[in-house]
């Protein structure tokens, strides 16, 4: 690994000041699991690395007054995976964090680092898209903006984060009353692998069996994590039966643009997107399957 200057920050203000000083030359380091590997391969060669490990404002998980959840960017996957606050919010969220790589990686890697890395096969983004979460981003002079999760990712390993911005936290709005969340990571190879495809669903169904809430996040099915809007529109307001869900889930094939790789051909992943979208909705909704 080529050497560099290391500048540990002690506060958000200090991190932003260092970023302003070094500009394009600088990268933030969170847990290091992605950045260290990319630096070793020479894919990223920053002159200055700004450490965020000693910035307490970036850590922690709390429920917001409205019943939502706010997760500091430097919160490790393992802390979120085992968080009572996250379990109380929606158990499928911490469980989704628990299927990332191995426990060693989860002890070191952070939620903010995961999002900024913008690998389309990562697990948190589809879940956070389904949850309608936003990325809370700060820049110098106390400026802040919220970027909806589904527009945070712009291309393969690219985000809409500005050159002068730092991810402070992830804000998840409260779940609509009665809605449920599920995440399925399809892993035909090994348990510590990246997803071949992954599907996250937030679903609400009223007493009459009508779909009142549906958001679908997809992983590993394009150059960014995706939202399956056509499937959502086809089902919202409909009475959900097995055949209605089956027909709607087929629409996902035209919403994805997967890459051929060692985990499968694009054609195979497109078909698996349909299978898992259908399966997760049916199971979560208890539709056409014995309870």
């Amino acid at each position: 690994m080529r050497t560099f200057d290391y500048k540990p920050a002690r506060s958000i203000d200090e991190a932003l000041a260092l970023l302003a000083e070094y500009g394009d030359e600088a990268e933030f380091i969170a847990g290091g699991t992605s950045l260290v590997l990319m630096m070793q391969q020479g894919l990223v060669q920053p002159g200055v690395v700004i450490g965020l490990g000693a910035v307490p404002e970036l850590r922690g998980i709390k429920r917001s007054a409205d019943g939502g959840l706010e997760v500091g960017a430097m919160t490790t996957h393992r802390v979120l995976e085992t968080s009572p606050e996250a379990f109380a919010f929606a158990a499928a969220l911490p469980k989704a964090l628990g299927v990332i790589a191995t426990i060693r990686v989860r002890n070191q890697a952070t939620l903010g680092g995961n999002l900024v890395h913008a690998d389309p096969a990562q697990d948190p983004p589809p879940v956070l898209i389904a949850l309608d979460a936003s990325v809370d981003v700060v820049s110098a002079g106390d400026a802040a903006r919220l970027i909806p999760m589904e527009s945070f990712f712009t291309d393969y390993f690219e985000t809409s984060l500005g050159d002068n911005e730092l991810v402070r936290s992830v804000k998840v709005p409260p779940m609509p009353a009665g809605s449920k969340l599920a995440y399925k990571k399809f892993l035909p190879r090994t348990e510590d692998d990246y997803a071949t495809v992954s599907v996250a669903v937030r679903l609400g169904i009223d007493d009459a069996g009508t779909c009142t809430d549906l958001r679908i996040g997809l992983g590993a099915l394009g150059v960014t994590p995706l939202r399956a809007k056509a499937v959502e529109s086809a089902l919202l307001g409909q009475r959900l039966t097995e055949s209605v869900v089956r027909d709607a889930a087929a629409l996902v094939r035209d919403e994805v643009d997967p890459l051929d790789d060692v985990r499968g051909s694009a054609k195979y992943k497109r078909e698996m997107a349909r299978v898992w979208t259908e399966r997760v909705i049916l199971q979560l909704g208890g539709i056409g399957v014995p309870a």
Partner: protein
Amino acid sequence: MSVHQISFQLNGTAVERTVGPEVLLVDLLRDDIGLTGTKIGCSIGVCGACSILVDGALMSGCLLPAIMVDGRAVTTIEGLADGEQLTPLQDAFIRKGGFQCGICTSGQIIAATALLASNAKPNREEIKEWMMGNLCRCTGYYKIIDSIEDAAGIDRANV
């Protein structure tokens, strides 16, 4: 490029070193400090040979710049035994044949130490799930799991 004075607890003893930011913890441990019990396998955080504990949490020494353990407590395989007195896990790995060629063993025992610290009586599935990231190229997985059960005082005949 910058150099940094770091101090950390290594197996219960205070250590101070001057390091460049590009130095990985596994290299500092092996090449500078001379603790070669921590092994290097894949160097990309997958195999678990370089497993170490940082403030009790299981991590990969190959993904961790040494500057990131400044002020923290690091435990390696050398820090487990008390003199000649092995830990129950080390003892069980010997008695139950929990290793073959040995290259993964330091990492296996460190990972299992972290497991038993957080879950004193794990069931077989919990052991498999926790140890999933520590690869054994001799494929001696059953005896590794048997060793961990033995150290946890689990008698499989009565499970």
